[in-house]
């Protein structure tokens, strides 16, 4: 089989690419290992909702049309949205791409349904293919769970739970596990704090309108850092920061630095990571106020850090029954037989342009800060397909 463009992945990124490829009359196919919106269906926990309100959750060819524009979509609603945007897309589901290599005409893809030749390839296989789990010597008897295996608290063993990581995933899981009656110890390294609402508007309304989300990747001071930033401490509908968790009874500890002789050892630098997050949050709110041209609004209470957080937790004492590793995700490029991945496993690209007709979509801060979110895909896909058309004409 030959196509001009092969798109790998039928998630929001692959579907958006297809939309613009169709508009540009570029012959293409979208290859999907499972079904449309596969990761949203299978690799998420039960309670997860989008961080963006519905009115922001738009894809090319499919915007929210329901009765609650200020609500937050659950995974069923996200799947519906993606399916609507997929209705005219040439998707081939159940086709797993196991290799992509250079060829004289462009690329050859090895798939479960035979080879596919393509002049150009768009990698839209996602940013969160694998959970990142640090390698520590966890004592036997303590169950370990990643967000890929986690569905809800009832599947965890009884007893205390050590949640490692305080990004969106970590704070959301810590909250619902604590509410299930299992005492949570939350290990927090560097994190991004946000209130759900600032001056009566959703914080993402501010990100969207103030122009913060429109900042281009090539205008940022430290792009590497921006791309590695943990997801903000947000949940649908209400503020969920470390203070919220402390009020719920969650115990805060510093970043997990080692497990030694069966004991988890935490950094003594918790106070500073909290200070860094508070300062950064206040600078963000300053940006909003400047944009709005108004006097500063009320600032959130500084993070309440325990006077002396525990830095040692014995994992053999029975206090902790399980560890939830909310320590991030990374993409999987093990199938990509083109030397475009750096030694840390990141794709080397310039705003999604890898080079030689190879493109990427759906990665954090790909072309703008907004790229990290569902609603960022439309502009990115348009830009990438514009570039791809020039390459084909080239």
């Amino acid at each position, binding site marked *: 089989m030959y196509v001009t463009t092969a798109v790998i992945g039928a998630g929001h990124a692959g579907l958006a690419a297809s939309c613009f490829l169709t508009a540009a009359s570029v012959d293409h196919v979208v290859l999907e290992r499972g079904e449309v919106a596969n990761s949203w269906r299978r690799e998420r926990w039960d309670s997860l909702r989008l961080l963006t309100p519905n009115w922001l959750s738009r894809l090319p060819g499919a915007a929210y049309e329901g009765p609650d524009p200020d609500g937050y979509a659950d995974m069923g609603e996200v799947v519906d949205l993606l399916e609507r945007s997929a209705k005219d897309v040439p998707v081939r589901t159940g086709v797993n791409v196991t290799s992509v290599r250079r060829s004289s005409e462009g690329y050859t893809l090895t798939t479960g349904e035979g080879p596919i030749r393509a002049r150009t390839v768009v990698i839209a296989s996602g940013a969160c293919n694998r959970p990142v789990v640090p390698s520590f010597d966890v004592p036997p008897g303590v169950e370990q769970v990643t967000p890929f295996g986690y569905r809800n608290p009832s599947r965890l063993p009884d007893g205390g739970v050590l949640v490692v990581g305080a990004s969106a995933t970590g704070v959301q899981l810590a909250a619902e596990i604590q509410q299930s009656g299992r005492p949570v110890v939350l290990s927090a390294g560097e994190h991004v704090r946000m209130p759900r609402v600032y001056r009566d508007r959703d914080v993402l309304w501010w990100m969207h309108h103030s122009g913060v989300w429109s900042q281009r990747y090539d205008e940022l001071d430290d792009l590497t850092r921006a791309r590695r930033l943990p997801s903000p401490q947000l949940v649908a509908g209400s503020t969920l920061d470390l203070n919220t968790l402390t009020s719920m009874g969650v115990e805060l500890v510093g970043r997990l630095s*080692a497990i030694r002789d069966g004991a988890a*050892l935490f*950094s003594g*630098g918790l106070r500073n990571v909290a200070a860094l997050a508070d*300062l950064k949050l206040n*600078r963000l709110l300053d940006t909003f106020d400047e944009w709005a041209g108004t006097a500063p609004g009320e600032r959130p209470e500084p993070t309440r850090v325990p006077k002396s957080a525990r830095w040692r937790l014995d994992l053999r004492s029975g206090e902790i029954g399980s560890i939830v590793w909310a320590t991030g995700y990374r993409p999987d490029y093990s199938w990509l037989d083109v030397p475009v991945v750096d030694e840390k496993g990141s794709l080397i690209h310039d705003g999604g342009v890898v080079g030689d007709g190879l493109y990427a979509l759906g990665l954090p801060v790909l072309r703008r800060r907004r790229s990290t979110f569902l609603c960022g895909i439309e502009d990115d896909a348009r830009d990438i397909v514009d570039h791809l058309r020039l390459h084909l004409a080239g």
Partner: protein
Amino acid sequence: MSNGVNVQALLDAREALKGAPEAAQFTWRASSKWQHGVHSTTKIQKFFGLGQEQSHKSEAVFEADHPEIFAAEDNGVTPIEYLLVGLAACLTAGVASVAQNRGIKLNSVESVVEGDHDIRGILGADSDVRNGFNDVKVTFTIDADASPAEIEALVAQSQKRSAVFDALTNPTNVTVEVA
């Protein structure tokens, strides 16, 4: 605007070492000699870095002892106090560097470092008490051409990039052998 930190050299080094991790491997060394009682003298001059042996301009000599209330001769500061020296110096260097990088002029930077220490640990008087510090507190007083939030950000960033802060707040493997 200059605080006397050559930030450009540091930024250049950061770029250069990104592609040369082996050159970034340093080994710092101190050589110590027992004098008498609990008094020792430690000298520092040579270190390894950028792929070769390096040397400070001159040798530095540090006397360590314990105070008279420890029934010692007090020929120098207590070893654990050297940790305070290291932390204060490291954070201060960080504040100056970050300020330089951010274009903030410093007029004065002073700090007081306090380490709370329950000495029942080292005396073996109570096995539940640790040997080291229970708490370390650093208080900066900074006069700079910057807002209070900018000054707090300097101090926060200096902790984030401090070798000694990291070494004190996180566990480190330590091997002690008899040669």
